[in-house]
């Protein structure tokens, strides 16, 4: 990870990174003063990295993740995913980028409650137009790997928190995204379940080369991250700290 001062050079020309930002700002208009949630973040995450973004509440972690994933548009600055600038895209193209190149894992699981575990996990594949037989095969294969065998037909309320979060991870990674953005994925889990989830994500990172960027307060996540970014008041603090 590189700090605010990193030069992006010919941004977007090469695609040896999963995500890259340039002078990223997000300002929310608010009385009496606008809130500067993100202030000039320059960031590059190489493909295959396992990065944690730490910082106190209100430091802008979630906003940065939303900007990286195209869920909200920056007030200023640019974002590239694998060399493609997403800040210039229209809504429909942005939705396509999210569908094909980005996976999301949220703090509160956020599975669609009317879909079963299998249907939730295969949702992105379905949007991508993957045939049903292949979808089911891929979901069942991954479920086996991450300990979700037997829960395919259960609806989210019938799953434990850990199971729901693993289904959410499955949904995020099954579409073979360039980048998985996880917003405090272990925050609602007990320590055993959180460790198990981290094992799953680490394994996916190691075996499939999936790039993960977490926001977290959890020291366990920070310890296991390949790199750690500290965010304070919407800015990256100092240089990257190697850990793990």
């Amino acid at each position, binding site marked *: 990870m590189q700090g605010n001062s990193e030069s992006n050079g010919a941004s977007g020309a090469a695609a040896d990174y999963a995500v890259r930002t340039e002078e990223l700002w997000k300002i929310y208009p608010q009385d009496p003063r606008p809130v500067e949630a993100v202030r000039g973040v320059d960031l590059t995450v190489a493909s295959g990295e396992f990065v944690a973004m730490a910082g106190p509440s209100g430091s802008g972690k979630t906003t940065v993740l939303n900007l990286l994933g195209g*869920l909200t548009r920056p007030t200023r600055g640019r974002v590239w995913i694998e060399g493609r600038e997403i800040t210039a895209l229209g809504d429909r193209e942005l939705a396509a980028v999210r569908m094909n190149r980005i996976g999301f894992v949220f703090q509160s699981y956020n599975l*669609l409650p009317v879909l079963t575990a299998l249907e939730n996990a295969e949702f992105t594949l*379905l949007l991508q137009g993957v*045939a049903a037989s292949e979808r089911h095969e891929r979901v069942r294969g991954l479920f086996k790997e991450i300990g979700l065998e037997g829960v395919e037909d259960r609806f989210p309320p019938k799953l434990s928190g850990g199971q729901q979060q693993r289904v959410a991870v499955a949904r995020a990674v099954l579409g073979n995204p360039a980048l998985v953005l996880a917003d405090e994925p272990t925050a609602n889990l007990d320590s055993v379940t959180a460790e198990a989830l981290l094992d799953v994500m680490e394994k996916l990172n190691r075996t499939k080369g999936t790039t993960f960027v977490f926001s977290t307060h959890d020291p366990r996540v920070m310890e296991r991250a390949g790199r750690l970014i500290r965010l304070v008041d919407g800015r990256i603090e100092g240089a990257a700290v190697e850990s793990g």
Partner: protein
Amino acid sequence: MARRDNDIWWRIAWRNLWRNRRRTIITASALSFGFVAAVLMMALMDGMLEEVVSNGTRVITGQVQIHADDYRPDQSLHATMGGREGLDVAGLLAAAESVEGVTGAAPRLYGGGLVSSGEETVGAVLVGMDPGREEGVSRFGSAMREGRMPGPGEIAIGATMAETTGIGPGEEVVLVASAADGSTGNELYTVSGIFQLGLGGFDNSYALLDLGSLQDLMAMDRARIHEVAIAVEHTDAADEVAEGVAAAVAGVSEGLLVEPWSVFHEQLYFMISMAGAMNAMIAMLIFGMAIFGVANTMLLATFERRREFAVARAVGTSARDIGRIVVYEGLLLGLVALAAGAVLAVPVVVYFHEFPVDLSGFVGTYSVVGSAVRPVLSAEYSWDGPLVAAVALVFTGILSALFPMWRAVRVPPADALAGR
């Protein structure tokens, strides 16, 4: 890219519909009752209109008539079909009755005259007719309060005329009428019966004679008649039947004009058309009001699911597919309500058809544009009303979903995920 499995949007919509089962049942029930109300109201209106049309056309006029093309508007004595020579009446009747949908045809001759008995003399419209054929076309026969239909040398008069003149069955009257040859015909007739149609104009001034008797009185031969009144199986098919009759009788004589009741009962037809438009208006009002209620409920449901829409958007669902979910929910809600409404509406309409509600204890018989209407609530079977109501119901579901859809596709994912 492979073809997408679009069933998922229907599946999501269907399951969303039943997440809050109570709310869906209440909303669908409101729509179903609206459907039943609309269908019943239109069936009762159809029943009343059928009564109006039936009485307006089955009492005397029939649903299709044949005249000489110069008979109206003057209704001249000389304007008989086929001119002064007349035509083959039996052939004309046979041609008319050969048309599909025709259930009866009756020849008539009209004239004006004076009916005298002792001191009393009243003016009368004289109708020469074939009593046997009239049974299949008009209600003169069944309206005989006393006595029977007239035979040769006999006359039947309306109840009011009988009261005015003090004449009863078996008594003799003198009839004086202008004849076709310019002379004045007069003859003695025996009163065979008194009829009461319940329509003032007819009971007061109509006198019925055997066709041959009136032809004799008016110095006309047997080939001369003014009118053939035709009864059809379905009153709403009268226009098509009239076209068929016109084609069938064209070879019998030239100068014949065949008209359905919508032409010669212009006022009645206008009233029926107005009532049909009113039906549609009332159905629109019923469902128009329902739209706001259903939209409000759907909007609430959409608002409750902002986070879900945001998640779906985050994982790549397009705004179009989000909108599709909401519209499908509205459509499915409409179809569920329709299914329930149909189950409820069928027995209700059948009941009112089989067991009409008689309001004669509260309201007397009344006359609408010359047609007697009994105060009876009777449902008429028809596909039109239920079809209109069904389409309106399904559209209500879809239209109700449009504003919630508009809101759903505009959910900002990041804000909704943050609970803002």
